[in-house]
């Protein structure tokens, strides 16, 4: 019983970085751009996020406000990198896959270099405190699993319905969906396709930056070169997994993080199976699920990956 509660209570906070990044990637892809550079933006976000509380407290305790400032600056950095990516793939119409790989290497490399320059070796920080929800956290089992985490966790899950509302109930969301599916139709309706894609990429970048900072400030509470460990790519995969829908993406993030926490816990039990097998498990789950998800043509953004040029007929 204890181990199950333990696994579930870790599943929730461990899923947040994936959740934020993949919701951001969902906005990118809904607008017709897939950003493989998510990993790189997360790395930059993780570095910027932890740098603020580290510089202020020299590795020691700081006021919570500095952590929040770190998260905010990380989101800002992510948004700027998203816009930079937009310049490359929207304005200059570079192939998105290649540009994304470039973005990933640029982000991870720059974050690591700056980290060595400003911080030096691996240093941990106290990071974000947990804020159990009053009353609710006292409920046995459920309180531990759902209501004893830090504030960002709650906010991230509240953001899922918000993202749904933005995408399906606002005019901006309508524009994003239109330019991602039939940009020419959107263009004839007087919608600025490129501008909408810039906006979506900025939002997606901001969420990826925030996701990275969540890892360094709230979850692991340190920075290292391999902190992101492929989560950016998993986030891209989760968008396909969740069929570009926020709620399904959330379920995907939870499933992945569930498989991952099983791995941590089983390692501790000393079962005589090579631990690499369990490390592998979450990734295998994603691959299997992706292989079997149906390719539903009616929901996918049909113009995904295609640059838009008004004067070239397709």
């Amino acid at each position, binding site marked *: 019983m204890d181990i199950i509660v333990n696994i579930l209570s870790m599943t929730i906070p461990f899923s947040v970085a994936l959740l934020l990044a993949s919701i951001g990637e969902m906005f990118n892809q809904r607008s017709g751009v897939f950003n493989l550079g998510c990993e790189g933006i997360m790395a930059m976000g993780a570095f910027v996020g932890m740098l603020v509380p580290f510089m202020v407290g020299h590795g020691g305790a700081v006021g919570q406000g500095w952590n929040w400032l770190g998260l905010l600056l990380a989101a800002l950095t992510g948004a700027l990198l998203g816009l930079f990516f937009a310049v490359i793939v929207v304005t200059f119409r570079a192939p998105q896959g290649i540009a994304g790989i470039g973005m990933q290497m640029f982000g991870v490399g720059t974050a690591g270099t700056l980290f060595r320059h400003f911080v030096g070796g691996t240093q941990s920080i106290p990071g974000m405190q947990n804020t159990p929800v009053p009353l609710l956290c006292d409920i046995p089992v459920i309180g531990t699993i759902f209501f004893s985490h830090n504030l960002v966790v709650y906010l991230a899950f509240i953001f899922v319905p918000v993202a749904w509302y933005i995408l399906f109930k606002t005019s901006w*969301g*309508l524009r994003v969906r239109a330019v991602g599916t039939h940009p020419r*139709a*959107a263009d004839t309706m007087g*919608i600025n396709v490129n501008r909408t894609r810039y906006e979506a990429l900025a939002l997606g970048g901001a969420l990826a930056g925030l996701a990275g900072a969540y890892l360094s400030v709230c979850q692991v509470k340190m920075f290292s070169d391999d902190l992101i460990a492929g989560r950016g790519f998993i986030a891209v995969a989760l968008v396909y997994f969740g069929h570009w829908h926020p709620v399904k993406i959330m379920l995907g993030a939870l499933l992945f993080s569930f498989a991952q926490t099983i791995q941590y816990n089983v390692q501790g039990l000393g079962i005589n199976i090579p631990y690499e097998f369990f490390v592998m498990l979450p990734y295998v789950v994603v691959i299997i699920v992706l292989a079997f998800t149906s390719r539903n043509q009616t929901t996918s953004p*049909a113009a995904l990956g295609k640059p838009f040029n008004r004067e070239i007929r397709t």
Partner: protein
Amino acid sequence: MEHISKRFPGVLASDDISLSVGEGQILALVGENGAGKTTLMNILMGIYQQDEGKIFINDKEVHFRGPEDAFNAGLGMVHQQYMLVPNMTVTENVALGYKQAWKPLKLDLDMVRSRVVEISSYYGLAVNPDAYIWQLSVGEQQRVELVKTLCLGAKFLILDEPTSALTPQETDELIALLKKMKNELSVIFISHKLNEVKALSDTVVILRHGAVVFSGNTDDYSPSQIAAMMTGHEIVLPENREEAVRGELALSIKDISVRSDRGFLALDHLSLDVYQGEIVGLAGVSGNGQRELAEAINGLRSIESGSIEFFGTDIANKSPYYVIDHGMGYIPEERNIEGIVPSFAIRENFILKDSDKKSFSRYRFLKNKAISRNAEVLRENFDIRCPDTATAAGSLSGGNIQKVILAREITRAPRFLIAVYPTRGLDMGAIEFIHQELLKKRKEGIGILLISEELDEIMNLSDRIAVIYKGSIQKVLKHGEANRKNLGILMAGVGREEEE
């Protein structure tokens, strides 16, 4: 519009064009493919910018930087390829342009929905505001396009080949509707179907190679006079007049059922026989299983039940290679996707099906000289207009691409030919040529299955006409029995109940 010119790399798409439309008038803009009709209208809508020339509305000069400016001036355009987002509802599609509903934090879809209902009942255009576009038929989508344009306040409609995908009945309805709406609207109507131009328009403007060659009152000219001015020479589409010489049974389809991409039964126990030396026309509104039938015969789609015999050999669920090897010729529906490899040279496209034959390769190495020689011969015989045969096939015009495919399929000396929408979107000159070639093959004793939604094409060429509706054959008519009316009725699915 006065003295409009527009250049694209390598071509002058609009050459000093001037035209004008009065209030409550319908102007027909006719011309062959590539004559620059659509380009001109895109300039009018602010989608393209003209290099020279001016646009006036009510005697005031206007500059449209984008479609939004054109909407505000009361212009609206229904494009040939419908500009609807398939995974959104009708209401959402209208909302894309309906700025009044864009509240800061909320999109007021209720407001858009009531506007859609209001417009559709006012003009008698039945649409379901909550349906998703992908659920709608082509005719319904067109109504949505009209409603959308009218919802955005258009007083001046531009319709780009509005009837190209409609059934005859739907076309008649549209024409009646436009005549009714003409009291309140001005219309520019792009078409190359001359009977519609005659039926609908007050004035007619003919474009050829981007320039106006004629303009005048529609009533003063006959369709054939207009056709001659459009192409620059008299066009008489060939007809199948000779008695059919029926040979052996070539293709025998028995009771086949096939599923579509979306999983429903696209062909439902369909049976059809085609003999050597005859052309069987398969008429029907597109989307009733034509594509699936052609793919099933050619080994491109798996068959759930039933059999397909090709000269006595069972070819059901065999590989495309097997089917080709048994003498099947295929002119596919999507000429740019299935018919050619667009980035390959024309001469490479000619040998796609024969690259491993002795004539074009030795020990798996291509014989480039033989390939070029072959290409030159075909280019000559089929009058393919291109800089040279090393040009990428994808850069050719639709008509020339179709000639490339036709040349390849016919010169492979097939025992049978399936042609799917072989003239869709082509101009009169190219249609004439393709019809002649098909009739020539028939005379040589080859069986042809012609899938088309152009009733004139089917009635001109076919010895027998089969009508397909919802995946099965409604009825097979002889050459003389069919006319536009009874075919149209059969295509719409009426008549089946009466017979049963």
